[in-house]
């Protein structure tokens, strides 16, 4: 209830309240802005340190503005002044001896006493000549200092969990990755598997890897490069294997010749003569003949039987991949599956052809072994392949060094533990060994404690060898406990002198004031107690 005639007072107070709210908003912004900026910087620093991609500046700005607005609304809602508070603040700043507040309180009472009405009139006439007080300079509130850590954590949490689409675009792949991709494609083409081509490719790979050693790669590119290198290595291993085919045993070839003697004497002869290229052609020719027969069942049955008989004669030590193929061919012939048998025979012919090319065949199509099956091209091919594999090994080592090493490998590759790695901000990280691969704190050999306070390895070696910990079971031996009685505790005070003095304060005061002590002597008593007071 507002008594009539007080509109001017309420209007003035509302105007002052608006001024206060603007001021408080300014204080809130002035307080929050530095905090938010500092928090943003802290969060960015942390993200950089943790290796998390930084968000876009729009996201940062949006987050900061959101926090600013939320903080502003929260602050104003919490500090929204009522009219009574406004009046008290007005009195505080204008030094009006509580006039506006008193007038407001009395004006809200419709049954105010006569002297209250007089007070209202006096206050209003006084305030009518009063201008709005000059407010002191704004200072940001220090009570919000607890906010930065909280906001930092929230910002870090939000930014770390943002979707990939908001992350910056990945870096373009460096030329090294493209080079490895091209190498993969070229090696997959059989025409490029000549010794000359392989030699050129090896030189090209060496040159690219030299350039790569001076290049700083991002995580993403490092992974892509490792993937390409792995593909290339697999291809090279296949080629290497192909360049070093395993020779068949003479017994196997003899068994194959015997098994096919009845079907194709020429084939058997070629096998016995060691002309595997010719044997391969004869084998294909034989399969064509069988396939063209109107009723090949009998032939297939004979073939299966002869193959099985010859295979049974072979010792285990004489068996190789050819034996396995022959076994499968025998089974296919027995089951009269002509198409599969023909395919299997082609594989056997191909194996014979490769064997012939690698092991002194007379002629053949171009292979990693060299054109025309020349045995003179093989070392060159193997050398090129090995050169490329070595280069790839070096590449892997470089990449792992850049990455900081993997557990179990260090920079020197000698000792288990962590390799030497680039340390963010120079801070030692858990799980790192030293440069020599020693099992420092955090390594896989770390026992969780060290023999010295600084964590240095202090294990000594004796002339007989390194010191070893004695084996034994704890608490297994005998022990004895003896209680020794002494008078030590009895000689000490049960409580501290200071505590006793403080506990007896009331008794001391009572003694001074209540006992039958001459008034003139109380001063001396006080001085006595003063003299025995403990030093604080």
């Amino acid at each position, binding site marked *: 209830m507002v008594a009539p005639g007080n509109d001017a007072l309420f209007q003035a107070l509302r105007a002052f309240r608006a001024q206060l709210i603007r001021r408080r908003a300014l204080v809130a912004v002035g307080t929050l802005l530095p905090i938010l900026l500092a928090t943003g910087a802290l969060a960015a620093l942390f993200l950089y340190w943790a290796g998390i991609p930084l968000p876009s500046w729009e996201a940062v700005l949006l987050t900061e503005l959101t926090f600013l607005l939320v903080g502003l609304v929260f602050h104003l809602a919490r500090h929204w002044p009522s009219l009574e508070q406004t009046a008290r603040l007005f009195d505080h700043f204008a030094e009006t001896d509580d*006039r506006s507040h008193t007038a407001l*309180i009395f004006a809200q009472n419709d049954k*105010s006493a006569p002297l209250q009405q007089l007070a209202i009139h006096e206050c209003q006439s006084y305030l009518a000549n009063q201008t709005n007080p000059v407010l002191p300079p704004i200072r940001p509130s220090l009570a919000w200092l607890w906010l930065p850590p909280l906001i930092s954590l929230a910002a870090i949490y939000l930014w770390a969990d943002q979707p990939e689409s908001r992350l910056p675009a990945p870096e373009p792949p460096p030329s090294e990755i493209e080079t490895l991709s091209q190498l993969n494609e070229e090696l997959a083409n059989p025409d490029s598997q000549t010794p000359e081509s392989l030699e050129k490719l090896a030189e090209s790979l060496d040159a690219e890897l030299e350039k790569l050693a001076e290049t700083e790669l991002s995580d993403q590119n490092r992974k892509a490069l490792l993937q390409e290198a792995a593909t290339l290595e697999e291809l090279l291993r296949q080629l290497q294997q192909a360049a070093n085919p395993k020779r068949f045993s003479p017994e196997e070839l003899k068994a194959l010749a015997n098994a096919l003697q009845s079907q194709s004497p020429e084939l058997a002869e070629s096998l016995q003569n060691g002309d595997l290229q010719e044997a391969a052609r004869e084998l294909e020719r034989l399969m064509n003949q069988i396939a063209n027969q109107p009723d090949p069942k009998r032939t297939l049955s004979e073939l299966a039987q002869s193959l099985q008989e010859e295979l049974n004669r072979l010792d285990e030590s004489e068996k190789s991949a050819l034996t396995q193929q022959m076994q499968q061919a025998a089974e296919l012939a027995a089951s009269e599956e002509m198409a599969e048998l023909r395919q299997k025979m082609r594989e056997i012919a191909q194996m014979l052809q490769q064997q012939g090319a690698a092991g002194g065949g007379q002629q053949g199509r171009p292979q990693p072994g060299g054109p025309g099956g020349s045995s003179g091209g093989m070392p060159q091919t193997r050398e090129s392949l090995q050169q490329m594999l070595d280069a790839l090994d070096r590449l892997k080592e470089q990449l792992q060094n850049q990455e900081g090493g993997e557990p179990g490998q260090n920079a020197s590759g000698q000792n288990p533990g962590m390799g030497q790695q680039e340390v963010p901000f120079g801070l030692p990280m858990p799980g790192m060994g030293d440069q020599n691969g020693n099992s420092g704190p955090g390594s896989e050999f770390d026992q969780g404690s060290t023999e010295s306070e600084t964590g240095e390895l202090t294990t000594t070696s004796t002339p007989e060898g390194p010191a070893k910990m004695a084996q034994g079971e704890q608490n297994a031996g005998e022990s004895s406990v003896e209680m020794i009685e002494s008078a030590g505790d009895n000689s000490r005070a049960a409580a501290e002198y200071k505590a006793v003095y403080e506990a007896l304060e009331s008794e001391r005061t009572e003694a001074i004031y209540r006992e039958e002590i001459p*008034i003139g002597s109380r001063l001396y008593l006080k001085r006595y107690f003063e003299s025995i007071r403990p030093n604080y």
Partner: protein
Amino acid sequence: MPDTPSLDELSKESTDFCQTFHRLRAEIGEVIVGQESIIDGVLVCLFASGHVLLEGVPGLGKTMLVRTLGQAVDLDFSRIQFTPDLMPADIIGTTMIAETPEGRKQFVFERGPVFAHLLLADEINRATPKTQSALLEAMQEKHVTVAGESHALQEPFLVLATQNPLEMEGTYPLPEAQLDRFFFKLKVAYPTEDELRMILSRTTEEEEPAAHPVLGREDVLKMRRLVRQVPMTPEIQTFAIHLLLATHPDTEFSGDQAKRYVRYGPSPRGLQAMILAAKIYALLAGRYHVAESDIERASAPALRHRVILNFEGEAEGIDVDTIIAEAIERAKAPSP
């Protein structure tokens, strides 16, 4: 039902209060040199129906002040010099055998010096506690009981007691219960050089100054009634209560000094004294309401003799006024 005074009447009454107060102070100032705050304090006690304890070394004009006040307000004045052999009957009076005109003997109550408007209890701490306590009933209840018969004291009744803070031998410090009966405790300071010169010129020349009556008994009672009508807001009451609690050692408002050095805080009577004095200060400031500044001004004289220091406080020589100043700061609302 009494007639409610109009606003104009109240306004005039308030203006008169202020003018009378200042006139009275000026009249006392004609005799007493300096000591304005002491004169103000004594007059506040007069209009707030309280008693005042003046503490100061001898020769500072305490007795002169009280006598001058008696002259200026045209009230009965009596003086008791407290000594160790002073008896209660010497203060309140006694019954004596008197002969009637008819020749019969009867007991007649012979009034003591306490039956006056203004009573100066000079060096009150020299009397024994038994005699001191005889003043208790008179100061609080405004009547005395002798031989089972109560005798009312005249209004206004104001006790002005003095004590010497230096002398310890042969004195009986006032007990807390009696100290609490005093509205204000005023410390009479030593005069300055100029004041001493003026004292010399006034007291050693041929014509000594004298005060003239400014107001009478009825005026005093009327002004007392006006004082009690001065309104105050609940917030100001809260401030005064918090201030009082802050001088206690074991409340949520207690400051560090109060916690460490105070044995007992002021009683609610101290709060009443503070509010009544603040109302007078408000009227003197031309206001019709009590402000925080009035409470602050009244707090030290109203509370300083009610704060009982503990042994450590006394040993450290702590001034109670510093504890009250700390309490004021703690009671104030937090600044924006």
